[in-house]
């Protein structure tokens, strides 16, 4: 028996920019699945721009693939007519990373599923885990650096802020500028400035994979010693692993982006072939800290975690 995806064409929106650390891992998972299943994979990039995702989707439809994997970021309303058109034409569509709460039940029987974390819950979980591990009291100052302007992605930051505030912490939220988003080094003086102005800051959360990986450099420049401040963030990368090893970074929440790519392609192919319904998988829940980093770090260097 041959591969189950033989001759199939899967269109895959990797979501982020070309070379973005997070979406590259997602794409690596998808590529691996495509190789395993023997199907053809078409990868496109959307720079985290909802408009670009929609534009790409439209052009993708014209290519007539067998299955399409989308990020949910543009939302139900923007996607509805397009997804409907695709499914009417027999194309299997499934979402990753951000849920489409209205479309998913609507088309689940046609194979529309969701693989990925629940942004809100992931943020909430991380905040709770931080509160559990750290020793914080009411009125302590916390710093959150995130991307609220990307609405669905921003839910994670909003959940963190809410959870921390509910616990009585004082939270300073800062929006990541497009410049820092691309070149994390530009964030150094911002952290230095913030910490000089707010020396009572006890907790820093980087709601951004690339910024998480630079925590060590930031804190070093700000003259903070490892362990002085509880620093947490998201996503693993080689630099993140070394920051954990050096002790600057305390806790990293990791929702296994590789699986987003792998499982979604797997599901699309199986649905196309055997007509399964859409899968809903929550990939969140992994935490990396000094205890387990040595096991995971080598995988990060390969772009798997």
């Amino acid at each position, binding site marked *: 028996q041959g591969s189950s995806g033989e001759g199939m064409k899967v269109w895959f929106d990797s979501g982020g920019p*070309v*070379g973005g650390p997070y979406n590259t891992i997602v*794409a690596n998972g998808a*590529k691996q699945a495509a190789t395993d299943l023997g199907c*053809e*994979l*078409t*990868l*496109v*990039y959307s*720079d*985290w*721009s*909802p*408009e*670009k995702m*929609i*534009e790409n989707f*439209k*052009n*993708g*439809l*014209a*290519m*007539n693939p067998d299955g399409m994997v989308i990020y949910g970021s*543009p*939302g*139900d*309303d*923007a996607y*509805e*007519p397009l997804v409907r058109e695709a499914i009417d034409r027999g194309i299997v569509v499934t979402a990753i990373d951000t849920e489409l709460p209205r479309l998913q039940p609507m088309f689940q029987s046609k194979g529309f599923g969701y693989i990925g974390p629940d942004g809100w819950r992931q943020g909430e979980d991380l905040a709770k885990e931080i509160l559990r591990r750290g020793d914080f009291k009411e009125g302590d100052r916390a710093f959150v650096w995130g991307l*609220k*302007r*990307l*609405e669905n992605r*921003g839910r994670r930051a909003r959940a963190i802020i809410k959870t921390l505030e509910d616990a009585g912490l004082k939270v300073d939220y800062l*929006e990541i500028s*497009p410049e820092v988003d691309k070149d994390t080094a530009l964030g150094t003086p911002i952290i230095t400035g913030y910490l000089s102005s707010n020396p009572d800051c006890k907790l820093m959360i980087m709601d951004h994979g690339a910024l998480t990986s630079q925590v060590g450099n930031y804190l070093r420049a700000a003259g903070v010693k490892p362990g002085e401040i509880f620093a947490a963030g998201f996503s693993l990368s080689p630099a993140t692993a070394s920051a954990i090893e050096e002790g600057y970074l305390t806790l990293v929440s990791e929702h296994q982006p590789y699986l987003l790519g792998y499982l979604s392609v797997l599901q699309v192919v199986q649905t196309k072939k055997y007509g399964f319904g859409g899968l809903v998988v929550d990939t969140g829940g992994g935490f990396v800290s000094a205890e387990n980093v040595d096991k995971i770090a080598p995988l990060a260097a390969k772009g798997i975690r």
Partner: protein
Amino acid sequence: MRCLWESHRRGILVTLGLIGLLVLFAIASPRTFLNPRIYRSFLSTIPVTAILALGMTLLVVVGEMDLSFPSVCAAAAYVFAEAFLATGSGAVAFGLAIASGAIMGWINGLIVVRIGVPSIIATIGTQFFWRGLILLLSDGIALSLASVRGTDIYSLFVGRMAGEIPVQSLWCLAIALGLALLLNRHPFGDSLLFIGDNRKTAAMMGIPVAKVRIKAFILMGVLSAFAGILATLELANWWPTQGEGYMLLVFASVFVGGTSAYGGEGTIYGTLIGAIIIGIIEAGIVSAGLAGFWTRLVHGLIIVVSVSIYATMARRPQDM
């Protein structure tokens, strides 16, 4: 005569470039490019960049630049979305959004022309400012305009003519035609050309230089607003990051089209074709089966190679 041929030659060359690309893509992926569906998709997405690039062409002709248009787009579209959600009237929302675009363009014009700040830095500043303002007002949360689907304003601007052709492409064509007349056949366009050619000469010949420059910025603001409205309507959704991806595409469209970066010359037709070329490349590469990181590389290669061929063929047979 000579100049006529010269200008036609450029138009012909850029058109040949587009045709060449289409043929290339059709050979590489006939399933996609011999099917009308992809063109329908293009006709719904390219008009937004094209309209922005058309406005930018006039600014480049007069010797200016506007880097604030992504934010102006988003801000005007925000006004549109909020006004539509508040009043339910597409006409009111449209009017307010266009007016806000005009005001933002006018502010750019004032800073550049009256105060004398170079346009690049002035519009980087206003870009940050407007983006910040709408983020603040919207709290970074997208607005869903699902209810706009099916209204008059929706079908007027982004409906499908004969169930097939996205109406925005007709609007884009109409704007291109209007701007081509404005630039080449109207005294205002004449003033743009002379100011871009030599501002001192223009002033000496009695052209109201300051007023014309400000008007060019206002026009860009209005067109940005219109483009923002089209994008928002098409997706029935407003996002706080709207417009950010257009920056390079718009400039690429203008200069692929053959407009001179030194001001004083420009072609509306070229920009329109340029926007189409820039708008189809990525889809063409992806459907040809070059995926992932290859897309970027080949994208760059196609731009460089096609413009190089074009530049070589367009070169004048004289020394300078």
